[in-house]
């Protein structure tokens, strides 16, 4: 049995049939591998996935600081998504609002479920307007709302006409789709319909970009913006870390969209291309080499001598500033192995960062990625929509004549596609070495088994498996919330990450524990490849 088969061995026939396609061992690098992804989780398997509401309210809308995000539903969901993702924000300018410290909920009670909660929702909004006077309200519904038929879209229309403010309703009931991913899509659709393009600004700046899919966990977005601004880019808006409704409404004035988290935001990138002609480029500001590659790609895209020179200057400055620490941590960390299991893009991004310090990733996986996040966008035409994905609205915006602006000529665009990651993404598999195993929608048992089989020196995932991993004697770091650390982006962020990693691996406590495989045999097999599968 190889490692993959050993993991699957425990399952019953039915579960085996399902899971075998989600667990892939890469044996010959470069040979296309197909993985099953974005399909329903198996009940009872203790998966790490969240729900549609978590993706919409928690991930995409949550970080927008100057909008009131009102959860329409019973209290739990609003409470659990209250300031838990460590997305930082600071209000900018006089009178700017920051609602990130707040959790707003309609706190539905039993009678509201029986008789409908629309009236309560309206009344809650009256109260919000009285006390908080926001310029923008997002309404997010939880499971029961969709079932009892509250028309939150009608309420949003009423808010817009009564208060003359922006308002969008997101029907992101937890049961929709198969994971957070559906919520990302629903949030993308709502922002596209109601917010982007609603501002009056005109396209004017030469190097104006939007940063998409950067949620400013632990300050990542700020670090990235700092670099971009230093080089001379105008960052029109960030989706959605330290996000601002006031800025996002003018996102259509940018010349280029930079896509950091492909999974959660590619919809907006594509829709903005169709509607406003804005090209997008896949970037990755996690990892030193990747940051350099991304910055150079941008300079190539804009093809401006001054910009290119500034880019190189900034890269040189940043590298010089971290050189000593980079050498130190590299010398300390080289040779270690890691497991990386995060949401839908980070598992890829962090492999690059780990490589900067000589750490090899031996097992990796995503919670809610789609096939293109593993195999690259080349497979998009082959992905057949299933019942769950068909339930999520697919928008097809048409060109907006007033704001449509192409930055590149068609010829130049085609030419550049060969040079940089222009409107393409090659996926995580390409990064991974022979013999590594990738798991889609990993669960508690599989994580435990993989740790046992691969014995990585450190395991990066989230709070739900953190303590289980540590109980097994393996250092762990949370890549969702960074364990109260960060930023990890760009150059100085890479050093923060290396420091945190080394601190975890070298914690004295590990020396006093004995990992189980040193005490008794937990693996079965024989030497010399004579084992029977």
């Amino acid at each position, binding site marked *: 049995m190889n490692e993959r088969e050993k993991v699957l061995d425990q399952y019953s026939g039915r579960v085996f049939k399902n899971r075998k396609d989600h667990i892939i061992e890469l044996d010959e690098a470069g040979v296309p591998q197909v993985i099953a992804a974005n399909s329903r989780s198996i009940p009872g398997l203790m998966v790490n996935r969240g729900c549609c509401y978590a993706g919409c309210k928690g991930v995409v809308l949550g970080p927008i600081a100057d909008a009131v995000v009102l959860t329409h539903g019973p209290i739990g969901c609003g409470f659990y998504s209250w300031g*838990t993702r460590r997305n930082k924000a600071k209000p900018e300018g006089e009178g700017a609002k920051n609602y990130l410290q707040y959790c707003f909920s309609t706190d539905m009670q039993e009678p509201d479920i029986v008789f409908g909660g629309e009236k309560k929702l309206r009344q809650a909004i009256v109260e919000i307007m009285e006390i908080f006077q926001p310029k923008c309200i997002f309404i997010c519904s939880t499971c029961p709302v969709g079932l009892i038929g509250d028309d939150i879209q009608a309420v949003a229309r009423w808010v817009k006409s009564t208060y003359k403010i922006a308002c969008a309703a997101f029907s992101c009931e937890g049961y929709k789709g198969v994971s957070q991913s559906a919520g990302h899509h629903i949030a993308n659709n709502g922002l596209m319909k109601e917010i982007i393009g609603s501002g009056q600004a005109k396209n004017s700046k030469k190097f104006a970009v939007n940063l998409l899919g950067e949620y400013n966990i632990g300050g990542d977005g700020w670090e990235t913006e700092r670099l971009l601004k230093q080089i001379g880019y105008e960052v029109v808006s960030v989706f959605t870390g330290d996000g601002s409704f006031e800025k996002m409404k003018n996102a259509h004035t940018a010349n280029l969209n930079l896509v950091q988290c492909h999974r959660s935001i590619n919809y907006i990138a594509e829709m903005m291309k169709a509607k406003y002609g804005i090209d997008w480029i896949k970037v990755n500001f996690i990892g030193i080499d990747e940051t350099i590659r991304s910055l150079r790609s941008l300079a190539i895209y804009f093809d401006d001598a001054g910009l290119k020179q500034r880019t190189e200057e900034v890269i040189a400055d940043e590298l010089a500033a971290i050189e000593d620490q980079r050498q130190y941590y590299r010398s300390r960390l080289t040779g270690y192995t890691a497991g990386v299991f995060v949401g839908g893009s980070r598992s890829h991004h962090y492999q690059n960062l780990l490589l900067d310090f000589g750490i090899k990733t031996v097992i990796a996986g995503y919670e809610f990625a789609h096939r293109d996040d593993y195999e690259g966008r080349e497979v998009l035409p082959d992905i057949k929509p299933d019942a769950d994905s068909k339930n999520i609205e697919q928008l097809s915006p048409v060109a907006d004549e007033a704001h449509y602006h192409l930055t590149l000529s068609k010829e130049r665009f085609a030419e550049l596609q060969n040079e940089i990651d222009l409107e393409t993404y090659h996926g995580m598999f390409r990064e991974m070495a022979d013999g590594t195993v990738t798991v889609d929608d990993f669960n508690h048992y599989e994580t435990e088994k993989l740790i046992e089989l691969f014995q990585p020196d450190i395991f990066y995932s989230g709070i739900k498996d953190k303590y289980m991993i540590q109980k097994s004697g393996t250092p762990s770091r949370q890549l969702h919330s960074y364990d109260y650390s960060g930023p990890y982006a760009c150059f100085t962020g890479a050093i923060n990450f290396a420091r945190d990693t080394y601190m975890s691996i070298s914690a004295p406590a590990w020396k006093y524990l004995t990992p189980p495989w040193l005490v008794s045999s937990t693996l079965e097999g024989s030497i010399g490849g004579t084992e029977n599968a």
Partner: protein
Amino acid sequence: MNKNFADLNVNPCKMCVPLGAATAFYGIRKCMSILHGSQGCSTYIRRHMATHYNEPVDIASSSLTEQGTVFGGEKNLLQGLENLIRLYEPEVIGVATTCLAETIGEDVPAMIKKFYEQHPEYRQVKIINASTAGYAGTQNEGFFRALRAIVSQVEMRTEKNGKLNVITGYLSPADQRYLKELLAEMGPEFILLPDFSDNLDGGHETMYQRLPQKGTSLEEIAQMGGARCTLELSRFVRPEDSPGAYLQQQYGVPCTRLDIPCGLRGMDALLSALTQLGGRQTEKIWQARSRYLDAMVDSHKYSALGRALIFGEPDFVQGTVKLCAENGLIPVAALTGAVCPEFRQALSEEMAAAAEIQFIDKFVIEDDADFARAEALAVALGVNILIGNSDGRRIAEKMHLPLIRASFPIHDQVGGQRIRTIGYSGSLAFLDRMANALLLQRASGFREDMYKKYYLAGATKPTQIGLATDKAAMLAKKTAEHPCFTCGQGKYARIHLPIAPACNVQCNYCLRKYDCPNESRPGVTTEILSPEEALMKYQRVKADMPNLRVVGIAGPGDSLANFAATKATLTLLHEFDPDVTFCLSTNGLMLPAYAEELIRLQVTHVTITINAVDPKIGAQIYKYVDYMGTRYHGESAAGILLANQLTGLQYLAQHDVVCKVNIVALKGINETHIEDVVRKVKELGAKITNIMQMIPVAGSAFEHIPMVSLKEIAAMRARCSVYLEQMMHCRQCRADAAGTLDHDVSILYRRAERLPADEAAPLQRVAVATKSGTLVDQHFGQANEFYIYESDGIQARFIERRNVVRYCQGKEICETKTDRIEALLHTIKDCSSVLAMRIGDSPQRKLEAMGIRVIATYDRIEDAVKKAAQGA
């Protein structure tokens, strides 16, 4: 409704029902739980529990999708149960429903029945279902509902076993361990339900066990029906959720309800109940009791400093209130997020008695409260300590209050699972933490307070006579050279550096626009300077004006709302010119924070605008106040502002800073209150007050308020001069004013450029009569105001608008109709020409007699002004 909001929950002080159920199931041996609903529920709950307990928290989900909402979730739940059993081999499975399952009306008992039918091989696994819709209460109800489901679904062995059932609500694992030790010490055989003291606070074992190995076993639960008696340590559990009530109804096991054993009386009650049931009172227990008593005495002086806001589950709050009350730490607010009608009744007597000891007449007990309510109460009741879960941290940070973390969840610190609050030893530990927080609060400010009150205010002056005299002489000189303090005698010049754009107070009479060169009043400038630019500007102006003595920071926002810029500017300027006089204008909001530093920065003159000394009146003047990250409205805004203005003024005055207080007279709002303001600021040490007219600004909230007439202002000043010197010559200068009061040349220094003095023709000052503001289109005699321009014939620059009435210098000139012309002439007497559409013969003669050229024209203003200047 005693809540802020009726239909909106802002920052909830409660969690959902299934979370409580999942926690309770963690107290059962070899039990796994599964939530029937969408997978987000279990993910969110796992995340919240794991962060608190720092342990693996594994709760499965039936992962319902949209299809499940249509066809029902039976298939998912059956499959989930099967997988759970295959992978974890549990002895018990708790199935808790969620909002989704309850809303679509899932029949879980029927599904479990079906599961057993399909899988006879799993019959030995006990599957327990709890109906826990998220909208049917809070985590506290969920907790008891799961316990009730457990005792009602496990087959009981009813033969009498003489054991004692002990059922608790939400306790920390450490408190559960304590309870077990206590019961073991006292002797009676007991069954503790639930018991997650190991499962949620485990050690590091050689092999990690996926399945929780400890807790109350099925075997023990089965004996609960044959027990001698039940002690249920919860005052507020609903009868329909109470496991004790069920055991009594069903199996005749008598149930005694006790308070959570927090504090002396709570623990005494438990001890006495256990003694009656045959428990031994050992020496060890009595020692713990006497140690707690000793601690109560030891810390009573610090405990009594406390005014506590306590929040969380009803039982926790009640126990903590009793502990606080018996220690003289006054619980002034007790809040729970749960809907709990008995809550108020149960606590009011205790809290009233506690409050009475220290003359506190107001305390609040509320159920169904959120943190927005808690924050409002903390302000209103003068709370100085918060006790509850870590969600109170936001208030704690904002108000700089200590938060004693207890209960669930603790998300921002480690060790939440080991916090002790019950028993004598737990009460002692809990009390120590409170007393220490209060002690720290007192100690951290005590020396400083005393130093300020006695040492600085009293002792310094006599011992430093020489120094004080020097300083006084220096101050007198600086004041004498300050244009605002010398009746604008025109000898010395001042410059206002516009470096402070932001403001933290919105006054209803103010509308600040930066790029507004056509107005002259406070709050207006054409540009904002960086500290470095400000230095450059000062250097340029100083070179041209050797009589420049005073640098003022007057906005356009508030100098202290931009303290970094203000500090940098003052530092730079002081380095360049150590003799410069610094004069700062502020609304006073941030004075307590920065006054000390301002003195260090050599600021000798400060102007504070104080329009009212009564928050009720202030509330009409200020729209809002942004303070420490929060926007306050109404009287709380005015109250905060006022308190800071007055403490700031007093502090500055005590430290020899010359303080001027500006008062904007607002018709119908503070006009009768101004005397009070003057008296108050005099008392605190202000040297001069300046009562000013409000200039109505289009677009501001007070746009349509009539101006208080100059006559009225003069009368007010006369009345107030009895108390304090009055400033009579205020020009309500721009935020970037430069020059002497009578001759503002700020226009020359704007936008970092200036006319080269040697090349430019002499400047002509031209008065323009205009209605439209763009054309010379007004009859001279009908003009109520003049636009004043300066021009060298090549460029024309707007200086200011002069209101004829405002420039009127007194009764004898302005009061009579016939002398209106005199007022007009007086307004423009410093101009070399006047432009008007038409002009009467008599004024024309008078103007020419004054040496002012009269040009009648109908033209664009700029062109006409330039022509006039060329013709000179």
